[in-house]
């Protein structure tokens, strides 16, 4: 019954995605063989970016199942489809197993200088791989639960329910995401740590996913061309997610800047050398000032096309942020890292989008939840559902 939405998402982009993905993958394979030092930081960045879109979708889908609220219904399809891509993200993470000697202090043989005894233990390879496997298994279970609940809602015309399970799922999700950030991102600077880092990047994932979902909604033809309250809700939520990220990121910087302890401030000093010095001011503008100013205005956030523009800007900002967090940790990274990083971004993005599109189509045959009568009063009783 929703055939219109099935065809309106500019149909012929599945094959280009696949082709771009395969071509990119070929470039990546070449890079991994010829210049692993230049290649792997780029690949890790691209992987974390797309992982963020998928994981963030899962997290927000769980959050919406817990709290309800009108904002979530209009993007629940892209969010659930995004959550369903976690198996492919697992596959895309497998090449990273080859990267350990290049990327991580614990991956090589001469690692014993920069890690303390606890980190030696925490990063024992079997333990490290075991954790990675656990993360993916649990995320898969959660994404299975989210998509089953979504389908059940559509088939039986109920919206909401299962809030208690969603709450537990969200807790597990958040914990595992935090530790995944420690394992895969924070560890690029051996020895450095910050207690908010897990929450900061998990919130970044949420920004990526919500921005992506807003863009998909815009192109799926579900959105009105006139300003409407539903779109405005999405704009407000995007603003809220992004401000939380800004809040975490600024607090971390501010506290480390104020204390100025050598064990902490190296992270920022390293990231303000050379060209990287431009990254943080750029982030302040494109991740905070511009989206903030735009999303304050109702004329922007209630307008699907303009909101999608802001969301695209935020996705670009996410990529800049992840690049800035990961790549400067590597002295071996150089100009070719940008080339390989772009290739990896296209490769992973193409493959991921291909799978996302397949999952999204599967969900399209179900009714749109906003048409169901019980969704109407959702805003009034969103905490009711447990």
């Amino acid at each position, binding site marked *: 019954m929703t055939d219109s939405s099935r065809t309106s998402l500019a149909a012929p982009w599945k094959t280009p995605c696949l082709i771009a993905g395969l071509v990119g993958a070929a470039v990546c394979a070449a890079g991994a063989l010829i210049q692993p030092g230049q290649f792997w930081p780029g690949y890790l960045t691209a992987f974390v970016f797309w992982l963020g879109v998928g994981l963030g979708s899962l997290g927000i889908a769980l959050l919406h199942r817990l709290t309800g609220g009108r904002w979530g219904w209009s993007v629940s399809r892209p969010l659930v489809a995004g959550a369903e891509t976690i198996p492919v993200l697992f596959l895309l993470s497998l090449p990273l197993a080859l990267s350990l000697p290049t990327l991580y202090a614990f991956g090589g043989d001469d690692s014993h200088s920069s890690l303390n005894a*606890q980190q030696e233990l925490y990063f024992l390879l079997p333990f490290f791989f075991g954790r990675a496997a656990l993360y993916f298994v649990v995320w898969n279970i959660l994404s299975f639960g989210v998509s089953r609940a979504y389908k059940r809602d559509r088939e039986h015309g109920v919206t909401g329910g299962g809030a208690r399970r969603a709450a537990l799922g969200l807790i597990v999700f958040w914990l595992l995401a935090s530790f995944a950030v420690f394992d895969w991102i924070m560890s690029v600077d051996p020895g450095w740590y910050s207690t908010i880092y897990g929450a900061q990047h998990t919130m970044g994932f949420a920004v990526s996913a919500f921005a992506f979902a807003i863009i998909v909604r815009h192109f799926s033809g579900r959105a009105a061309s006139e300003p409407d309250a539903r779109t405005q809700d999405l704009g407000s939520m995007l603003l809220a997610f992004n401000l939380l990220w800004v809040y975490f990121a600024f607090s971390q910087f501010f*506290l480390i800047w104020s*204390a100025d302890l050598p064990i902490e401030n190296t992270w920022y000093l390293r990231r303000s050398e050379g060209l990287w010095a431009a990254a943080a001011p750029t982030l302040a503008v494109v991740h905070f000032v511009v989206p903030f100013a735009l999303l304050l205005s109702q004329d922007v956030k209630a307008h699907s096309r303009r909101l999608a523009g802001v969301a695209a800007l935020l996705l670009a900002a996410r990529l800049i942020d992840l690049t800035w967090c990961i790549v400067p940790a590597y002295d071996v990274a150089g100009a070719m890292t940008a080339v390989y990083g772009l290739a990896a971004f296209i490769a992973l993005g193409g493959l991921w989008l291909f799978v996302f599109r397949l999952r999204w189509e599967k969900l399209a045959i179900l009714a749109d939840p906003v048409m169901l009568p019980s969704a109407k009063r959702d805003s009034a009783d969103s905490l*009711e*559902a447990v």
Partner: protein
Amino acid sequence: MTDTHVQSDPSTEPRQTVRSVSQQISAIVLTEGPPRGWWAGFLVSFLLVMLLLVSVGWLFAKGVGIWGINQPVGWGFAIVNFVWWIGIGHAGTLISAILLLFRQEWRTSINRFAEAMTLFAVACAGLFPLLHMGRPQFFFWFIPYPSTTGMWPQFRSPLIWDFFAVGTYATVSLMFWYVGLIPDLATLRDRSRTGRGRIIYGFLAMGWRGSARHWKRYQSAYLLLAGLATPLVISVHTIVSYDFAISILPGWHATVFPPYFVAGAIYSGFAMVLTLSIPLRAVYRLQNFVTDRHLDNMAKVMLASGLVVAYGYLMEHFLAWYGGHQLEEFMLLNRMFGPYAWSYWALIGCNILIPQLLWFKSVRARPLPLFFIAIVINIGMWLERYVIVVTSLHRDFLPSSWGMYEPTFWDWSTYLGTIGLFAALLFLFIRLLPMISIFEMRELVHEHEHSGGASAEAGTS
């Protein structure tokens, strides 16, 4: 959705009308004499206010030496109580502002009361840094003004940030509360039967008539205030956390502090709202306004914010282990097994373990267990600040400068005194002003009358 406690009407019992709402709520202030419990409660809190006056008078006479603070623990009760009170205040703003922005109608019957709680808690909180300064008569040196000394405040100091944060918070909370009161003051003006009441409420209502254009601007201003109060409330406790976290002291310097302090503030604030509203609704028979559903929702918010606090603890502990930093490790071991271990384990019990009972619907549905859990959380959040302040300070870098902290009688009497001040102000508030927003209740009741059977029908879904 299968539970039987869901009522057809989101916030009130269905039989209310626009007229009955106006009558029932304004009657508490205008016609009914205070119940006996009010007098008893007010008397006790008034005595505690007297205790506060004595304690503060003695402090002014003798100086901060009457407290237990000394090297190395220079912060003691004053800062613990400051953070505790200001945290409690935050729930009021959250209920008013954030739930308004999220269109959570159930907030309507508790927001006024919670806002008043915010004001009084901030008043209690603001006392402590002033008293702790040693020379409170010079508090105005915080204010940037061209003085004859030619000096200016030190804007790189968290003490100045606190001054601006708490000052802004108190001002904005007061305005938010007062703006919310204006239409209700007009109702009291028009319903009051005494000339004195008409004059006082009439003066405060500023000639409010409820014209359509006025309402439109009013609603716009109120929403904008809510939009401003939301980041404000987060910033206030963030700045309080900066007081600790910009230092280099193990146990204070952690980047997770800002969000985890904010969550802790919400946690203790909702606990305080429950602690107060459960007895109040019983005494004033307000079960039809503050329904079981309100208690249930507040319990859920409490559970969620408590879990964020637990996440903060987990991150601190894990990364102290992971970082392998000797001072960080020692700080945590000292907390867990040092001389103040009792406070650490009591904190874990009060803040993390016992509140897990809130997962059960049957616990959330009963006011009595909920009341006790809320009190436990209040204690737990006080202990959290005690642990952070005292155990971090009492054994720092040099073992030769270690020491112990022991609160004195005056520490306790000042603390109890502020509890009395808080309670006395609340008693006066419920006696003199409508503790539930009348006009928002009218609006809610009207909407449900207007939507006809829709609400009843939706309740069965």
